[in-house]
């Protein structure tokens, strides 16, 4: 039975370990937290994050009208400020550096890169314009730099939108589509997204349908979110068809219900208020949130490639209590005329270069993919990449503890190896990483500029170009201006120029010159004008 005593009690000299954590969401920070708890000051952690900004889905997934859920970043800040922790933002592991590069430099690498991919339904018409996945839609309104170009219809046909799915994400999306835009704008929701939703509402968006294929007893939403549909705004009327609710209460579901405190409380919300509201649906001037159960999308109807409606089949529940599935019936389908369909049926792992995947999951044992071997540090996983894309922020706690404990145990039991040389020269060669200090300055600026606009914060979606943030792979920062590397360059860090037609001469300060008309010379130092008939003006 391996001893779990920390190595420093068994060996003569203490040995410092250096671990790399890839990903700065809850998985990355909780894993770091528990690693430090185990290791004390014999451990250093370097965290790498692809985006300039940290915190993953806490920043981009939590609904903007749920700011208190994001308080966890205070905890993460404590970890980030520990002297043996370093944050490197704007560094894409898998691209530069490679995963193998990291494993050669660190005693262990923990992948906490989550799951940002979409899951498809596989129905006809799904590719129509106006059908989007919640993973992209949520990141769009939350100011994620990769999703600001999401193409969406300018008006919503049929004055209706349909959200497919009944988890909390589906309820978030639906709620945000009907809340008054002035409420939304006061949050840190991207203003361009607020304006889009406002114009949808102005041009007639009145009803948002939330559609799930099983009954309410099986639905994944929780009561806090369900209750919020009732309280989010005076301008919103949440409804459910009482007959449909009754359909959900088959024998097996009643049995499931009797065993679930949570679902019993859901009945109250659905029956007492939402079902009662159903009668008002025809006469109200409020925007309507209608929850459907036992409906499954059969086909997206489109015209000229754009969504015009969706056909929903009637389902029935089949199977043993706790394992019921939705099965199709012969009953008439429901056709809803709509111009926006948001698919909220889960996330999926996004592969990156070097990530070991089997049937789209990373194979592991207690978070360990591979222990350390010749010249390569061990490989570990934590968070959604490890468990699959399910669960809330807090779900990462037990998970991170498992990976941290396993990792630490493995490090103690490696056969004695000489300590690796420090990865410090590697990190100092990284291309302008964003430090945690840089992030704090950016955060302060987001709050400051947001407050000026009447918002909780205005997120930087491209880059704050003050030497703090820019998208290093495709863009650059030139004295306060962001430029596209393919077309332009920055001369001497100050002058932006078209790199196709101009050059940058650094012999005498930084001078931009037009090819063909000027030369850049060592003698005389700097640029000179080419005389007609002469090949060059340099001596």
């Amino acid at each position, binding site marked *: 039975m391996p001893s779990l005593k920390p190595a420093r009690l068994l060996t003569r000299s203490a040995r410092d370990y250096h671990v790399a954590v890839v990903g700065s969401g809850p998985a990355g920070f909780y894993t770091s937290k*528990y690693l430090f708890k185990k290791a004390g000051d014999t451990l250093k952690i370097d965290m790498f994050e692809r985006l300039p900004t940290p915190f993953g889905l806490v920043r981009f997934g939590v609904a903007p009208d749920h700011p208190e*859920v994001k308080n966890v970043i205070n905890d993460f800040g404590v970890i980030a400020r520990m002297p043996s922790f370093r944050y490197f933002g704007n560094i894409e592991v898998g691209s530069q550096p490679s995963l193998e590069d990291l494993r050669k430099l660190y005693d262990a690498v923990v992948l906490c890169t989550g799951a940002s991919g979409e899951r498809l339904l596989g129905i006809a018409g799904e590719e129509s314009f106006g059908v989007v996945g919640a993973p992209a839609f949520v990141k769009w309104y939350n100011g994620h730099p990769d999703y600001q170009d999401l193409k969406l219809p300018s008006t919503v046909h049929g004055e209706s939108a349909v959200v497919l799915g009944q988890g909390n994400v589906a309820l978030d999306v639906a709620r945000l589509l009907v809340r008054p835009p002035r409420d939304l704008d006061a949050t840190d929701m991207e203003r361009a997204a607020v304006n889009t939703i406002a114009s949808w509402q102005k041009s007639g968006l009145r009803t948002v349908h939330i559609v799930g294929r099983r009954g309410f007893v099986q639905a994944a939403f929780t009561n806090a979110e369900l209750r919020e549909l009732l309280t989010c705004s005076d301008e919103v009327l949440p409804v459910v068809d009482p007959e449909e609710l009754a359909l959900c209460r088959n024998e097996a579901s009643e049995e499931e219900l009797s065993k679930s405190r949570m679902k019993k409380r859901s009945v109250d919300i659905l029956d007492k208020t939402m079902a009662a509201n159903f009668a008002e649906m025809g006469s109200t001037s409020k925007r309507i949130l209608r929850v459907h159960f036992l409906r499954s999308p059969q086909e997206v109807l489109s015209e000229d490639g754009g969504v015009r409606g969706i056909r929903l089949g009637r389902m029935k529940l089949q199977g043993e209590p706790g394992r019921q599935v939705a099965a199709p019936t012969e009953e008439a389908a429901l056709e809803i005329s709509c111009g926006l369909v948001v698919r909220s049926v889960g996330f999926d792992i996004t592969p990156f270069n070097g990530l070991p995947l089997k049937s789209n999951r990373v194979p592991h044992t207690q978070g360990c993919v591979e222990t350390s071997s010749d010249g390569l540090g061990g490989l570990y996983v934590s968070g959604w990449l490890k468990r699959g894309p399910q669960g809330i922020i*807090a779900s990462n706690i037990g998970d991170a503890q498992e990976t941290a404990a396993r990792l630490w145990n493995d490090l103690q039991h490696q056969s004695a190896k000489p300590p690796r040389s420090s990865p410090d020269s590697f990190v100092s060669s990284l291309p302008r990483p964003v430090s945690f200090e840089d992030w704090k300055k950016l955060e302060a600026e987001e709050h400051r500029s947001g407050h000026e606009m009447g918002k909780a914060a205005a997120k930087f979606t491209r880059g704050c170009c003050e030497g703090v943030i820019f998208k290093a792979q495709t863009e650059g920062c030139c004295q306060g201006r962001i430029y596209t590397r393919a077309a332009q360059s920055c001369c001497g860090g100050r002058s932006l120029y078209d790199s196709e037609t101009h050059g940058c001469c650094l012999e005498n300060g930084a001078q931009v010159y037009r090819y063909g008309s000027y030369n850049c010379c060592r003698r005389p130092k700097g640029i000179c004008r080419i005389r007609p008939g002469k090949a060059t003006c340099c001596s």
Partner: protein
Amino acid sequence: MSLKDIAEYGSGEGASLLKEYIECACSGVMACSTCHVYLDASSFKALGPADEAEEDMIELAFEPAETSRLGCQLRLSSQLEGMTVTIPGGANNMFDHIPFE
């Protein structure tokens, strides 16, 4: 002064023990369920019922039970003298009980 406050800011052996086991992911504003604890039956009764919002959060916690409460809402008073707090298994103490092969 809540149980979570003691865990975070308290001094002494009891507080440090609590700190080991009680997480707080939302800074104590009842937006998560990481400070979930079980109480003994009589303390649970003495405390009075949780409000609806707290119940909603308890539902999300690891294996909620009849005597579940959130540590951040658990206001300590002399009425609760002798209270026993049990940390739910699986959520916060996987750390020390992982069987390694």
